[in-house]
């Protein structure tokens, strides 16, 4: 061990050498990692990006020697701090997991044992390392303080379910760092967290990394997060690293067609739907174990030539510490765009009378004797053919508003919903077919939204029967049109959802929503469960359908880049209240509401520009006991004065078409938000 220890001081924290991993599925070995080589220096942070199914998590599990039972390292080497991981005995592997490598998973709720108090779970790590009970508790307290948990003593006595998602992830990170590992593996650590919470967790990881001098393997599908967190990045495709280099260089000037494609899929830099469609990566990831000759990306590459099919490209050095596995790396950025014409160039500029009007909509839920006001006096009008983006943290009332509009939940007494000027019944039970088909929804998760026992034909056909009253030949014809409109191959109408890819499933869900020629379609995070290239295709489709049919979207998303790309106007919700409403340009540019400002600054960008960073203190307050005065004052980085605690500001039209709920006068907001980083930006410590 001592020999290894001295070697560890100089050896890279992690070295993968031509690592191949295969899974045994139905009796056949399927190659998932195809010779991955990488090296992470001591104290370095390495990002692994790629779409789902590329093998990112498999690589992480291999490093933990924690592959599923049907998984096997078929060849190659893994060295952690110079020690050969694959040659270790079981006992050594356990020591390795306890001392050298820690892993943080995506879902902190599942990573913590629900029946053990937080303090005991973290303390266990110290006890395994040999600390006494009392010592372990003391060090747990210190560790939790380090991950910026304010009242460590109190949190230690809690059970995981009593903590918020961000808090849970902090605890998991505390546990991971408790063993003082040389290598920390983070597998999508912030996916599923709110942008504001994500920002805090990322800040925390960055500062802890400096403090502990830990090497990091950071896995994420979110390129901007990787861009922010990592020194170097590797782009993984079909189990093969296709490009590697310093993160800022790779993102600024990608040298592999796949990296180029990935970056083009993302709405960024304030591009709007009218300007140009998002690029997509055509085709699909080869299935695991597919026999790939030549370059793994050939099938989907716009630059592919004979040589790409015949010959696996070697590592072409691009510059110092940077290489690409593409025969044509100097021309990588010349990959032709898949989408040329501006999607929805003719998008009907929203105007005219509101198609849908929400007036004084409130929703109070009763929960254990408390009245929880999920939605408070929201007034909104949706114009024909426009997209209204709805943003806010989880618990801000976005989904409640959507449900009220759809009639799935009745608003409180006094609320009104009007369609084309006619009042709608509060719930579906009172609405006629005409009203029901006029407002439809595309859900976030197509796996849950499509009945898994039904074929595509039955899912879409049933909607046509019920909403339009079609049957027989006419129904078939209409279904073909509909599926064609969403680019769904009608040869697949017999397939069940489980046989379709995520993007195809979402297309079916969109077809269903459009079956009855709706006036308004609620899109509830329709792309957040999809990979970026698929997301781009779905967003393009939504834009096209809008241009064609003049439908209005109520678009809910936590991804501000997506909202900005798609929305004409944006509504910002906080604790069920409308804080700001205005055109996309006004809301995204200062002066805006301090909450909007904080939301925007929380999102990491691909450009990696340093922006004034505003961190929101603490967590979103409980809707059961909203703060007095302005509900945002407890977390507001720009709190104006005592008036904010006393009096709720009205939603005032500060500029034409720009509504703001803030005591700060617009001029003052403009001055404040133009100023350099606010000194009063807080953290939870």
């Amino acid at each position: 061990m001592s020999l290894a220890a001295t070697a560890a001081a100089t050896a890279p924290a992690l070295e993968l050498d031509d690592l191949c991993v295969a899974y045994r599925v139905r009796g056949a070995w399927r190659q998932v990692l195809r010779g991955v080589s990488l090296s992470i220096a001591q104290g370095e942070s390495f990002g692994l990006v790629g779409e789902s199914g590329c093998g990112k998590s498999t690589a992480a599990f291999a490093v933990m020697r924690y592959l599923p039972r049907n998984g096997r390292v078929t060849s190659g080497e893994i060295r952690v701090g110079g020690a050969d991981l694959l040659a270790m005995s079981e006992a050594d592997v356990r020591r390795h997991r306890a001392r050298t490598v820690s892993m943080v998973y995506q879902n902190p709720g599942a990573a913590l044992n629900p029946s053990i108090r937080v303090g005991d779970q973290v303390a266990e790590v110290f006890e395994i390392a040999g600390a006494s009970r009392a010592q372990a508790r003391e060090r747990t307290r210190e560790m939790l303080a380090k991950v910026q948990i304010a009242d460590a003593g109190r949190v230690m006595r809690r059970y995981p379910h009593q903590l918020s998602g961000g808090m849970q992830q902090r605890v998991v990170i505390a546990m991971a760092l408790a063993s003082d590992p040389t290598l920390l593996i983070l597998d999508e650590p912030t996916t599923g967290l709110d942008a504001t919470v994500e920002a805090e967790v990322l800040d925390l990881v960055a500062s802890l990394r400096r403090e502990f001098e830990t090497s990091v393997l950071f896995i994420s599908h979110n390129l901007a997060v990787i861009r922010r967190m990592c020194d170097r990045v590797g782009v993984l495709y079909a189990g093969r690293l296709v490009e590697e280099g310093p993160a800022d260089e790779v993102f600024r000037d990608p040298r592999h067609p796949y990296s180029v494609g990935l970056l083009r899929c993302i709405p960024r830099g304030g591009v709007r739907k009218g300007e140009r469609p998002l690029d997509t990566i055509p085709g699909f990831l080869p299935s695991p174990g597919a026999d790939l000759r030549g370059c793994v990306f050939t099938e989907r590459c716009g630059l592919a030539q004979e040589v790409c099919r015949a010959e696996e490209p070697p590592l072409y050095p691009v510059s110092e510490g940077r290489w690409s596995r593409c025969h044509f790396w100097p021309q990588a950025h010349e990959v032709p765009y898949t989408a040329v014409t501006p999607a929805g160039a003719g998008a009907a500029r929203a105007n005219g009378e509101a198609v849908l009007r929400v007036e004084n909509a409130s929703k109070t839920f009763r929960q254990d004797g408390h009245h929880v006001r999920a939605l408070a006096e929201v007034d909104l009008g949706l114009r024909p053919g426009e997209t209204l983006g709805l943003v806010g943290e989880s618990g801000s009332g976005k989904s409640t508003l959507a449900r009220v509009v759809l009639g799935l939940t009745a608003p409180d007494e006094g609320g009104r919903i009007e369609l084309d000027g006619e009042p709608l019944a509060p719930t579906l039970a009172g609405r006629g077919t005409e009203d029901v088909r006029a407002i439809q929804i595309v859900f976030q998760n197509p796996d849950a939204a499509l009945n898994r026992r039904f074929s595509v034909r039955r899912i879409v056909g049933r909607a046509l029967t019920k909403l339009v009253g079609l049957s027989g030949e006419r129904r078939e014809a209409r279904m073909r049109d509909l599926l064609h409109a969403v680019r769904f191959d009608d040869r697949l109408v017999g397939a069940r959802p489980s046989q379709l890819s995520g993007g195809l499933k979402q297309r079916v869900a969109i077809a269903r929503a459009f079956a009855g020629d709706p006036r308004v379609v609620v899109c509830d995070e329709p792309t957040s469960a999809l990979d970026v290239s698929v997301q781009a295709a779905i967003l393009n489709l939504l834009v096209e359908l809008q241009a064609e049919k003049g439908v209005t979207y109520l678009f809910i998303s936590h991804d501000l880049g997506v909202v900005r790309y798609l929305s004409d106007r944006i509504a910002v919700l906080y604790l069920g209240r409308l804080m700001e409403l205005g055109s996309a340009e006004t809301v995204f540019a200062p002066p805006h509401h301090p909450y909007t400002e904080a939301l925007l600054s929380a999102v990491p960008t691909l450009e990696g520009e340093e922006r004034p960073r505003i961190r929101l203190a603490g967590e979103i307050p409980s809707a059961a006991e909203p703060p007095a005065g302005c509900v945002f004052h407890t977390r507001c980085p720009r709190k104006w004065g005592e008036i904010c605690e006393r009096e709720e500001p009205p939603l005032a039209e500060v500029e034409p078409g720009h509504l703001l709920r803030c005591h700060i006068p617009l001029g003052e907001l403009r001055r404040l938000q133009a100023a350099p980083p606010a000194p009063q930006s807080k953290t939870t410590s």
Partner: protein
Amino acid sequence: MTVTQDPLAITPVAPPRDEARVARREQIRLVLRSKTFIAGAIIVGFWVFCAAFGRAVAPYSPFETDILAKLEPPSAEHWFGTDRTGRDVFSRVLAGARDIMVVSLGATVLGTVLGTAIGLATGYLRGLVDDIVSRVVDAFLAVPVVVLGLLVLVAVTPSKLTVILVIGVVFTPIIARTVRAAVLAERELEYVEAARLRNERAPYIMFGEILPNVLAPVLVEFTVRLGYAIFAIATLSFLGVGIQPPAPDWGVQVFDHYQFLNGGDWWPTVFPAAAIATLVIGVNLVADGLTHALER
């Protein structure tokens, strides 16, 4: 006017028809690979064969008495010996499979159908219906099946039909509770809301949309209950309120002969008792195998 050109995006990697079949075959394979399931299926299969052809293959008529040869021990002539009226025990055990199988199957089917309907309704509708029905279910569950069955059956004339009705009704709340739990999980999925957004009526949502997705737990529950039903009916017959003599029922046979155990004449009791035991075990093994395969 096509704007986005992603022609490949509509062609999936593998022909999907195949994958559906593969997935289903995989599940069947998983069931068939389970040794528990196979062992159970062989036992149950044997008794099903007896239920169908028992009387045809039996060496004697199950009703033919022979006063001169009563209570004879097992021999080459009478493999399982003869009972107190000289009937061939082996033939009666073979023939006895039919009644108990028919009655227990009938009762379980009845209980599953009623229970599934109630479970779907309470789980989907929730509210007051759920509260009331669930309390009634709880009350039912507090009393042991056999006691409840006994109480009812002494009040009415026992016959195969009444046994089926009574056991079926007694099982209903138990099955309803299992189905309700599965439905509670399903109703949270958005396809249910999508159905409401098509103006679907509640019965369609329950039986058309949700039921196909809870069939796996229903099937498992059915098999488990079948085991209990066999046991309960044999017990009731033993107590004299189940299947009535002179039917060659196993429980009746045990009741008729257990007092002879003291005299050392074990065969007319032990063989039908063993038949009950093997059938119950067989059904439970099948249930176990299904549970593992279907409920991951």
